[in-house]
Protein backbone atom coordinates (compact mmCIF):
# COMPACT_ATOMS: atom_id res chain seq x y z
CA UNK A 1 0.00 0.00 0.00
CA UNK A 2 1.12 3.49 -0.75
CA UNK A 3 4.65 3.02 -1.96
CA UNK A 4 6.44 6.16 -3.05
CA UNK A 5 4.99 7.40 -6.26
CA UNK A 6 6.61 9.21 -9.14
CA UNK A 7 4.91 12.56 -9.51
CA UNK A 8 5.54 15.18 -12.11
CA UNK A 9 4.79 18.67 -10.88
CA UNK A 10 5.01 21.89 -12.82
CA UNK A 11 6.17 24.64 -10.53
CA UNK A 12 6.99 28.13 -11.74
CA UNK A 13 7.05 26.83 -15.30
CA UNK A 14 9.61 24.17 -14.46
CA UNK A 15 8.98 20.45 -14.35
CA UNK A 16 9.94 18.63 -11.15
CA UNK A 17 9.94 14.84 -11.27
CA UNK A 18 9.74 13.76 -7.66
CA UNK A 19 9.57 10.41 -5.93
CA UNK A 20 7.03 11.09 -3.20
CA UNK A 21 5.13 9.30 -0.48
CA UNK A 22 1.52 9.66 -1.58
CA UNK A 23 0.77 11.38 1.75
CA UNK A 24 3.06 14.27 0.85
CA UNK A 25 1.30 17.60 0.75
CA UNK A 26 2.10 20.12 -1.94
CA UNK A 27 3.67 22.22 0.83
CA UNK A 28 6.09 19.50 1.91
CA UNK A 29 6.80 18.57 -1.70
CA UNK A 30 7.90 22.15 -2.35
CA UNK A 31 9.86 22.64 0.86
CA UNK A 32 11.40 19.24 1.44
CA UNK A 33 11.73 17.80 -2.05
CA UNK A 34 11.78 20.53 -4.70
CA UNK A 35 14.15 22.84 -2.78
CA UNK A 36 11.58 25.62 -2.89
CA UNK A 37 11.29 26.61 0.77
CA UNK A 38 9.96 30.08 -0.01
CA UNK A 39 6.47 28.72 0.67
CA UNK A 40 6.16 28.59 4.45
CA UNK A 41 4.68 26.14 6.93
CA UNK A 42 2.99 28.07 9.71
CA UNK A 43 0.34 25.66 10.99
CA UNK A 44 0.00 22.75 8.54
CA UNK A 45 -3.73 22.70 9.18
CA UNK A 46 -5.29 25.39 7.03
CA UNK A 47 -5.44 28.02 9.75
CA UNK A 48 -2.80 30.63 8.90
CA UNK A 49 -2.25 31.14 5.16
CA UNK A 50 1.57 31.05 5.26
CA UNK A 51 1.58 28.24 2.69
CA UNK A 52 -0.50 30.08 0.08
CA UNK A 53 0.46 29.30 -3.53
CA UNK A 54 -1.34 29.64 -6.82
CA UNK A 55 -2.69 26.57 -8.60
CA UNK A 56 -3.84 27.40 -12.11
CA UNK A 57 -3.75 31.04 -11.08
CA UNK A 58 -5.96 30.72 -7.99
CA UNK A 59 -4.70 31.13 -4.44
CA UNK A 60 -4.94 27.94 -2.40
CA UNK A 61 -3.36 26.48 0.71
CA UNK A 62 -0.61 24.03 -0.15
CA UNK A 63 -0.78 22.40 3.30
CA UNK A 64 -4.25 21.02 2.60
CA UNK A 65 -3.46 20.00 -0.96
CA UNK A 66 -1.86 16.67 -1.79
CA UNK A 67 1.05 16.93 -4.19
CA UNK A 68 -0.71 14.28 -6.25
CA UNK A 69 -3.70 16.56 -6.72
CA UNK A 70 -1.76 19.16 -8.69
CA UNK A 71 -0.27 16.90 -11.32
CA UNK A 72 -0.98 18.54 -14.65
CA UNK A 73 -1.75 21.86 -13.03
CA UNK A 74 0.37 25.00 -12.97
CA UNK A 75 1.77 25.79 -9.54
CA UNK A 76 3.22 29.23 -8.86
CA UNK A 77 5.16 29.97 -5.71
CA UNK A 78 6.87 33.06 -4.37
CA UNK A 79 10.06 31.97 -6.12
CA UNK A 80 8.28 32.22 -9.46
CA UNK A 81 7.10 35.81 -9.33
CA UNK A 82 10.15 37.60 -10.63
CA UNK A 83 10.81 37.85 -14.33
CA UNK A 84 13.83 36.03 -15.73
CA UNK A 85 15.92 39.18 -15.47
CA UNK A 86 15.04 39.64 -11.83
CA UNK A 87 12.32 42.30 -12.01
CA UNK A 88 9.97 41.97 -9.08
CA UNK A 89 6.21 41.87 -9.19
CA UNK A 90 4.56 45.17 -8.24
CA UNK A 91 3.23 43.58 -5.05
CA UNK A 92 6.72 42.53 -3.98
CA UNK A 93 8.03 46.05 -4.53
CA UNK A 94 5.10 47.55 -2.66
CA UNK A 95 5.67 45.23 0.30
CA UNK A 96 9.25 46.51 0.60
CA UNK A 97 8.27 50.16 0.17
CA UNK A 98 5.48 50.01 2.73
CA UNK A 99 7.43 47.78 5.15
CA UNK A 100 4.57 45.31 5.02
CA UNK A 101 6.45 42.66 6.99
CA UNK A 102 8.91 42.27 9.81
CA UNK A 103 10.08 38.71 10.40
CA UNK A 104 9.12 37.86 6.83
CA UNK A 105 7.80 34.40 7.54
CA UNK A 106 4.18 35.01 6.55
CA UNK A 107 5.29 37.27 3.70
CA UNK A 108 5.42 34.82 0.79
CA UNK A 109 1.87 33.73 1.65
CA UNK A 110 0.75 37.34 2.04
CA UNK A 111 2.20 38.25 -1.35
CA UNK A 112 0.71 35.27 -3.16
CA UNK A 113 -2.59 36.07 -1.51
CA UNK A 114 -2.34 39.77 -2.35
CA UNK A 115 -1.68 39.14 -6.03
CA UNK A 116 -4.76 36.93 -6.18
CA UNK A 117 -6.78 39.40 -4.13
CA UNK A 118 -6.10 42.12 -6.68
CA UNK A 119 -6.75 39.80 -9.62
CA UNK A 120 -10.06 38.65 -8.11
CA UNK A 121 -11.23 42.26 -7.83
CA UNK A 122 -11.27 42.21 -4.05
CA UNK A 123 -8.87 45.10 -3.54
CA UNK A 124 -11.27 47.93 -4.34
CA UNK A 125 -11.47 49.41 -0.85
CA UNK A 126 -9.39 49.12 2.31
CA UNK A 127 -12.20 47.17 3.97
CA UNK A 128 -12.30 44.75 1.04
CA UNK A 129 -8.55 44.28 1.28
CA UNK A 130 -8.79 43.66 5.02
CA UNK A 131 -11.53 41.07 4.57
CA UNK A 132 -9.97 39.27 1.63
CA UNK A 133 -6.48 39.29 3.17
CA UNK A 134 -7.76 37.91 6.48
CA UNK A 135 -6.77 34.38 5.54
CA UNK A 136 -3.13 35.30 6.06
CA UNK A 137 -2.12 35.72 9.67
CA UNK A 138 0.79 38.02 10.47
CA UNK A 139 1.88 37.73 14.09
CA UNK A 140 4.27 40.68 13.73
CA UNK A 141 1.18 42.78 13.12
CA UNK A 142 2.09 44.31 9.78
CA UNK A 143 -1.56 44.49 8.72
CA UNK A 144 -1.90 48.26 8.22
CA UNK A 145 1.18 48.23 6.01
CA UNK A 146 -0.04 45.16 4.15
CA UNK A 147 -3.28 47.00 3.36
CA UNK A 148 -1.28 50.01 2.17
CA UNK A 149 0.95 47.84 0.01
CA UNK A 150 -1.97 45.99 -1.59
CA UNK A 151 -3.83 49.24 -2.23
CA UNK A 152 -0.74 50.79 -3.78
CA UNK A 153 0.12 47.76 -5.91
CA UNK A 154 -3.47 47.46 -7.09
CA UNK A 155 -3.51 51.03 -8.31
CA UNK A 156 -0.09 50.66 -9.96
CA UNK A 157 -1.18 47.51 -11.75
CA UNK A 158 -4.35 49.25 -12.88
CA UNK A 159 -2.32 52.14 -14.27
CA UNK A 160 0.03 49.74 -16.00
CA UNK A 161 -2.86 47.92 -17.61
CA UNK A 162 -4.38 51.20 -18.74
CA UNK A 163 -1.16 52.29 -20.45
Amino acid at each position, binding site marked *: *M*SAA*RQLSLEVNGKRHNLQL*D*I*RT*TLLDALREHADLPGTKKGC*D*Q*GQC*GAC*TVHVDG*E*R*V*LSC*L*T*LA*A*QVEGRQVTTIEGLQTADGVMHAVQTAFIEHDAFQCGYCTPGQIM*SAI*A*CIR*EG*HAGTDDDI*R*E*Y*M*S*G*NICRCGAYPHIVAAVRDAASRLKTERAL
Partner: protein
Amino acid sequence: MRPFDYLRAQDTAAAIAEAGKPETKFLAGGITLLDLMKLNVERPARVVDITRLSGLDTIEVSADVIRIGALAKMSKVADHAGVREAAPVLSESLWRAASAQLRNMASIGGNLMQRTRCTYFRDPGAYSNCNKRNPGSGCAAIEGINRNHAVLGTSDACIAIYPGDFAVSLVAFDADVLVRGTVARRIPIDEFYLLPGQTPHLEHPLSPGEMIVGIEIPRSAALKRSHYLKVRDRASYEFAAASAAVGIEMEADGRTIRDVRIAVGGVATKPWRLRAVEASLKGKTLDESTLRAAAAAAVEGAKSSGHNAFKIALVPKVVARALMTVGDIS
Protein backbone atom coordinates in the same frame (compact mmCIF):
# COMPACT_ATOMS: atom_id res chain seq x y z
CA MET B 1 -1.45 9.98 8.59
CA ARG B 2 -2.14 6.43 7.61
CA PRO B 3 -0.85 5.49 4.15
CA PHE B 4 -3.59 5.24 1.54
CA ASP B 5 -4.17 4.41 -2.09
CA TYR B 6 -4.83 7.47 -4.17
CA LEU B 7 -7.16 7.06 -7.11
CA ARG B 8 -8.12 9.76 -9.54
CA ALA B 9 -11.65 9.20 -10.76
CA GLN B 10 -12.19 9.61 -14.49
CA ASP B 11 -15.97 9.81 -14.39
CA THR B 12 -18.77 9.94 -11.88
CA ALA B 13 -19.80 6.32 -12.32
CA ALA B 14 -16.26 5.13 -11.69
CA ALA B 15 -15.96 7.38 -8.66
CA ILE B 16 -19.15 6.01 -7.17
CA ALA B 17 -18.07 2.44 -7.85
CA GLU B 18 -14.72 2.99 -6.16
CA ALA B 19 -16.13 4.85 -3.21
CA GLY B 20 -18.51 1.99 -2.48
CA LYS B 21 -15.55 -0.11 -1.39
CA PRO B 22 -14.62 -0.27 2.30
CA GLU B 23 -12.58 2.46 4.03
CA THR B 24 -12.83 4.75 1.03
CA LYS B 25 -13.35 8.49 1.00
CA PHE B 26 -14.04 11.04 -1.70
CA LEU B 27 -11.44 13.78 -1.89
CA ALA B 28 -12.57 17.12 -3.29
CA GLY B 29 -11.22 20.37 -1.80
CA GLY B 30 -9.57 18.33 0.92
CA ILE B 31 -10.20 20.89 3.60
CA THR B 32 -12.09 18.64 5.94
CA LEU B 33 -10.69 15.31 4.84
CA LEU B 34 -6.96 16.08 4.72
CA ASP B 35 -7.19 18.11 7.89
CA LEU B 36 -8.84 15.23 9.73
CA MET B 37 -6.45 12.71 8.20
CA LYS B 38 -3.52 14.68 9.61
CA LEU B 39 -5.24 14.59 12.99
CA ASN B 40 -5.84 10.84 12.66
CA VAL B 41 -9.57 11.38 13.01
CA GLU B 42 -10.04 10.07 9.48
CA ARG B 43 -7.87 7.11 8.48
CA PRO B 44 -9.10 5.97 5.07
CA ALA B 45 -7.31 3.20 3.21
CA ARG B 46 -8.34 4.61 -0.14
CA VAL B 47 -8.96 8.12 -1.34
CA VAL B 48 -10.84 8.85 -4.55
CA ASP B 49 -9.93 12.25 -5.97
CA ILE B 50 -13.04 13.57 -7.70
CA THR B 51 -11.76 17.06 -8.44
CA ARG B 52 -11.33 16.35 -12.16
CA LEU B 53 -14.81 15.05 -12.83
CA SER B 54 -16.35 17.21 -15.51
CA GLY B 55 -19.73 18.85 -15.55
CA LEU B 56 -20.18 19.06 -11.80
CA ASP B 57 -19.05 22.64 -11.27
CA THR B 58 -21.86 24.52 -13.00
CA ILE B 59 -23.90 27.31 -11.44
CA GLU B 60 -27.30 27.91 -13.04
CA VAL B 61 -29.88 30.45 -12.01
CA SER B 62 -33.15 29.74 -13.80
CA ALA B 63 -36.57 31.28 -13.32
CA ASP B 64 -37.56 29.09 -10.41
CA VAL B 65 -34.46 27.41 -9.13
CA ILE B 66 -30.76 27.87 -8.44
CA ARG B 67 -28.77 24.75 -9.27
CA ILE B 68 -25.17 24.45 -8.11
CA GLY B 69 -22.87 21.57 -9.03
CA ALA B 70 -21.18 19.78 -6.18
CA LEU B 71 -17.72 20.64 -7.44
CA ALA B 72 -18.38 24.36 -7.86
CA LYS B 73 -15.98 26.23 -5.62
CA MET B 74 -17.34 28.26 -2.71
CA SER B 75 -15.58 31.35 -4.05
CA LYS B 76 -17.18 31.05 -7.49
CA VAL B 77 -20.65 30.69 -6.04
CA ALA B 78 -20.11 33.57 -3.64
CA ASP B 79 -19.06 35.90 -6.46
CA HIS B 80 -21.63 34.67 -9.00
CA ALA B 81 -23.68 37.67 -10.13
CA GLY B 82 -26.88 35.68 -10.60
CA VAL B 83 -26.61 34.12 -7.16
CA ARG B 84 -25.93 37.47 -5.53
CA GLU B 85 -28.95 38.97 -7.22
CA ALA B 86 -31.38 36.13 -6.56
CA ALA B 87 -30.05 34.95 -3.21
CA PRO B 88 -27.86 37.36 -1.25
CA VAL B 89 -27.91 35.01 1.74
CA LEU B 90 -26.14 32.28 -0.22
CA SER B 91 -23.35 34.59 -1.32
CA GLU B 92 -22.94 36.13 2.13
CA SER B 93 -22.88 32.83 3.97
CA LEU B 94 -20.15 31.70 1.60
CA TRP B 95 -17.85 34.71 1.61
CA ARG B 96 -18.10 35.11 5.35
CA ALA B 97 -16.86 31.54 5.80
CA ALA B 98 -13.24 30.43 6.08
CA SER B 99 -10.73 32.42 4.01
CA ALA B 100 -10.35 33.32 0.35
CA GLN B 101 -7.83 30.51 -0.14
CA LEU B 102 -10.03 27.90 1.49
CA ARG B 103 -13.04 29.07 -0.51
CA ASN B 104 -11.02 28.62 -3.70
CA MET B 105 -10.36 25.02 -2.71
CA ALA B 106 -13.61 24.02 -1.07
CA SER B 107 -16.32 22.49 -3.19
CA ILE B 108 -19.98 23.02 -2.42
CA GLY B 109 -20.48 19.27 -1.95
CA GLY B 110 -17.52 19.05 0.38
CA ASN B 111 -18.74 22.06 2.31
CA LEU B 112 -22.01 20.26 3.03
CA MET B 113 -19.93 17.40 4.44
CA GLN B 114 -17.86 19.65 6.69
CA ARG B 115 -17.47 18.06 10.10
CA THR B 116 -17.60 19.49 13.57
CA ARG B 117 -14.77 21.57 15.06
CA CYS B 118 -15.25 20.05 18.53
CA THR B 119 -11.72 20.18 19.92
CA TYR B 120 -12.17 16.84 21.68
CA PHE B 121 -13.37 15.17 18.48
CA ARG B 122 -10.26 16.57 16.76
CA ASP B 123 -7.81 15.25 19.38
CA PRO B 124 -7.99 11.45 19.28
CA GLY B 125 -4.49 11.11 20.76
CA ALA B 126 -5.68 12.62 24.02
CA TYR B 127 -9.37 11.80 24.11
CA SER B 128 -10.55 8.32 23.23
CA ASN B 129 -13.93 9.22 24.69
CA CYS B 130 -15.85 10.63 21.76
CA ASN B 131 -19.14 9.09 20.71
CA LYS B 132 -18.75 10.56 17.26
CA ARG B 133 -15.40 8.82 16.71
CA ASN B 134 -15.86 5.78 18.92
CA PRO B 135 -19.57 5.06 19.42
CA GLY B 136 -20.33 4.31 23.02
CA SER B 137 -17.08 5.75 24.40
CA GLY B 138 -18.62 8.83 25.99
CA CYS B 139 -18.30 12.54 25.38
CA ALA B 140 -15.36 14.59 26.63
CA ALA B 141 -16.94 17.90 25.72
CA ILE B 142 -20.04 17.87 27.91
CA GLU B 143 -17.94 18.32 31.07
CA GLY B 144 -15.04 19.96 29.29
CA ILE B 145 -14.33 23.28 27.63
CA ASN B 146 -17.49 23.81 25.65
CA ARG B 147 -17.66 27.47 24.72
CA ASN B 148 -18.02 26.49 21.09
CA HIS B 149 -20.47 23.68 21.55
CA ALA B 150 -24.11 23.40 20.72
CA VAL B 151 -27.01 24.53 22.85
CA LEU B 152 -29.67 23.27 20.43
CA GLY B 153 -30.22 19.76 19.12
CA THR B 154 -27.87 18.21 21.64
CA SER B 155 -28.10 14.87 23.33
CA ASP B 156 -26.40 13.32 26.33
CA ALA B 157 -24.13 11.59 23.84
CA CYS B 158 -22.91 14.59 21.86
CA ILE B 159 -22.95 18.38 21.90
CA ALA B 160 -20.70 18.89 18.88
CA ILE B 161 -21.68 21.87 16.82
CA TYR B 162 -22.33 21.93 13.12
CA PRO B 163 -19.82 24.67 12.28
CA GLY B 164 -20.69 25.68 8.72
CA ASP B 165 -22.49 28.72 7.33
CA PHE B 166 -23.71 27.88 3.83
CA ALA B 167 -25.88 24.96 4.91
CA VAL B 168 -27.64 27.26 7.37
CA SER B 169 -28.78 29.33 4.39
CA LEU B 170 -29.80 26.20 2.51
CA VAL B 171 -31.87 24.96 5.43
CA ALA B 172 -33.65 28.31 5.70
CA PHE B 173 -34.64 28.17 2.04
CA ASP B 174 -35.59 24.50 1.61
CA ALA B 175 -32.79 23.36 -0.66
CA ASP B 176 -32.48 19.80 -1.88
CA VAL B 177 -29.25 17.84 -2.00
CA LEU B 178 -28.88 15.91 -5.25
CA VAL B 179 -27.22 12.57 -4.67
CA ARG B 180 -26.11 9.85 -7.03
CA GLY B 181 -25.31 6.27 -6.09
CA THR B 182 -26.81 3.15 -7.51
CA VAL B 183 -29.80 5.40 -8.09
CA ALA B 184 -30.14 9.17 -8.23
CA ARG B 185 -32.12 10.75 -5.43
CA ARG B 186 -32.89 14.06 -3.82
CA ILE B 187 -32.69 14.66 -0.08
CA PRO B 188 -34.31 17.72 1.53
CA ILE B 189 -31.46 19.61 3.19
CA ASP B 190 -33.05 19.54 6.61
CA GLU B 191 -33.05 15.74 6.45
CA PHE B 192 -29.50 15.65 5.12
CA TYR B 193 -28.24 16.54 8.61
CA LEU B 194 -29.03 14.07 11.35
CA LEU B 195 -29.47 14.93 15.00
CA PRO B 196 -26.84 13.23 17.18
CA GLY B 197 -29.28 11.42 19.47
CA GLN B 198 -27.54 8.28 20.62
CA THR B 199 -25.79 7.86 17.25
CA PRO B 200 -23.65 10.97 16.76
CA HIS B 201 -21.33 9.02 14.46
CA LEU B 202 -24.14 9.01 11.88
CA GLU B 203 -24.21 12.49 10.38
CA HIS B 204 -25.89 12.07 6.99
CA PRO B 205 -28.36 9.65 5.42
CA LEU B 206 -25.87 8.62 2.74
CA SER B 207 -25.06 5.08 1.72
CA PRO B 208 -21.50 3.98 0.92
CA GLY B 209 -20.52 5.23 -2.49
CA GLU B 210 -23.28 7.79 -2.73
CA MET B 211 -21.97 11.08 -4.00
CA ILE B 212 -23.39 14.57 -3.77
CA VAL B 213 -23.64 15.88 -7.31
CA GLY B 214 -25.36 19.19 -6.65
CA ILE B 215 -27.88 21.23 -4.76
CA GLU B 216 -31.06 22.98 -5.80
CA ILE B 217 -32.54 25.98 -4.09
CA PRO B 218 -36.07 27.04 -5.07
CA ARG B 219 -36.23 30.74 -5.82
CA SER B 220 -38.60 32.87 -3.80
CA ALA B 221 -39.27 36.47 -2.91
CA ALA B 222 -37.88 35.84 0.57
CA LEU B 223 -34.69 34.45 -0.94
CA LYS B 224 -34.24 37.63 -2.93
CA ARG B 225 -34.65 39.72 0.21
CA SER B 226 -32.31 37.72 2.37
CA HIS B 227 -29.27 38.15 4.57
CA TYR B 228 -26.70 36.17 6.51
CA LEU B 229 -25.57 37.66 9.81
CA LYS B 230 -22.51 36.11 11.40
CA VAL B 231 -21.40 37.10 14.89
CA ARG B 232 -17.97 36.01 16.06
CA ASP B 233 -15.07 37.05 18.27
CA ARG B 234 -12.72 37.76 15.40
CA ALA B 235 -13.84 39.96 12.51
CA SER B 236 -13.03 37.35 9.87
CA TYR B 237 -11.64 33.85 9.28
CA GLU B 238 -13.49 32.35 12.19
CA PHE B 239 -16.47 30.14 12.81
CA ALA B 240 -19.65 31.71 14.09
CA ALA B 241 -20.42 32.27 17.75
CA ALA B 242 -23.94 32.54 16.38
CA SER B 243 -25.32 33.25 12.94
CA ALA B 244 -28.66 33.65 11.23
CA ALA B 245 -29.82 33.15 7.67
CA VAL B 246 -33.02 35.04 7.09
CA GLY B 247 -35.31 36.17 4.29
CA ILE B 248 -38.54 38.07 4.22
CA GLU B 249 -41.42 38.77 1.85
CA MET B 250 -43.90 41.56 2.58
CA GLU B 251 -47.55 41.89 1.71
CA ALA B 252 -48.52 44.62 -0.74
CA ASP B 253 -49.13 46.99 2.19
CA GLY B 254 -45.40 46.97 2.84
CA ARG B 255 -45.97 46.47 6.55
CA THR B 256 -47.27 42.94 6.95
CA ILE B 257 -45.02 39.90 6.80
CA ARG B 258 -46.19 37.41 4.17
CA ASP B 259 -43.30 34.99 4.25
CA VAL B 260 -40.27 34.72 6.47
CA ARG B 261 -37.42 32.18 6.67
CA ILE B 262 -35.03 31.78 9.57
CA ALA B 263 -32.25 29.34 10.35
CA VAL B 264 -29.41 29.69 12.81
CA GLY B 265 -25.86 28.43 12.84
CA GLY B 266 -22.98 28.16 15.27
CA VAL B 267 -25.31 27.10 18.05
CA ALA B 268 -26.79 23.74 17.11
CA THR B 269 -25.76 20.22 16.22
CA LYS B 270 -27.13 20.78 12.72
CA PRO B 271 -28.21 23.80 10.68
CA TRP B 272 -31.22 24.86 12.72
CA ARG B 273 -34.44 25.98 11.11
CA LEU B 274 -36.75 28.08 13.29
CA ARG B 275 -40.15 27.18 11.89
CA ALA B 276 -42.06 28.16 15.03
CA VAL B 277 -40.56 31.65 15.00
CA GLU B 278 -41.37 31.92 11.31
CA ALA B 279 -44.98 30.87 11.95
CA SER B 280 -45.37 33.37 14.76
CA LEU B 281 -44.24 36.20 12.49
CA LYS B 282 -46.36 35.50 9.42
CA GLY B 283 -49.15 38.02 9.15
CA LYS B 284 -47.61 40.28 11.78
CA THR B 285 -46.53 43.86 11.33
CA LEU B 286 -42.85 44.28 10.75
CA ASP B 287 -41.34 46.29 13.59
CA GLU B 288 -38.53 45.92 16.08
CA SER B 289 -40.56 44.91 19.09
CA THR B 290 -42.49 42.27 17.15
CA LEU B 291 -39.26 40.82 15.80
CA ARG B 292 -37.57 40.78 19.19
CA ALA B 293 -40.57 39.19 20.86
CA ALA B 294 -40.80 36.47 18.23
CA ALA B 295 -37.03 35.85 18.24
CA ALA B 296 -37.11 35.10 21.95
CA ALA B 297 -38.59 31.72 21.06
CA ALA B 298 -35.58 30.87 18.92
CA VAL B 299 -33.85 29.12 21.80
CA GLU B 300 -36.79 27.08 23.00
CA GLY B 301 -35.40 23.83 24.35
CA ALA B 302 -31.85 25.14 24.40
CA LYS B 303 -29.50 23.54 26.88
CA SER B 304 -26.31 25.06 28.24
CA SER B 305 -23.27 22.96 29.00
CA GLY B 306 -21.58 25.78 30.89
CA HIS B 307 -19.20 27.87 28.83
CA ASN B 308 -21.67 28.03 25.95
CA ALA B 309 -24.51 29.55 27.98
CA PHE B 310 -23.91 32.89 26.31
CA LYS B 311 -25.12 31.48 23.02
CA ILE B 312 -28.61 31.06 24.43
CA ALA B 313 -28.78 34.78 25.14
CA LEU B 314 -27.11 35.65 21.87
CA VAL B 315 -29.28 33.72 19.41
CA PRO B 316 -32.50 35.74 19.77
CA LYS B 317 -30.54 38.97 19.33
CA VAL B 318 -28.84 37.65 16.21
CA VAL B 319 -32.15 36.49 14.75
CA ALA B 320 -33.85 39.80 15.51
CA ARG B 321 -31.03 41.89 14.09
CA ALA B 322 -30.80 39.81 10.93
CA LEU B 323 -34.52 40.28 10.37
CA MET B 324 -34.27 43.99 11.14
CA THR B 325 -31.58 44.27 8.51
CA VAL B 326 -33.67 42.64 5.77
CA GLY B 327 -36.69 44.54 7.04
CA ASP B 328 -34.81 47.86 6.71
CA ILE B 329 -35.25 48.68 10.39
CA SER B 330 -32.13 50.60 11.32
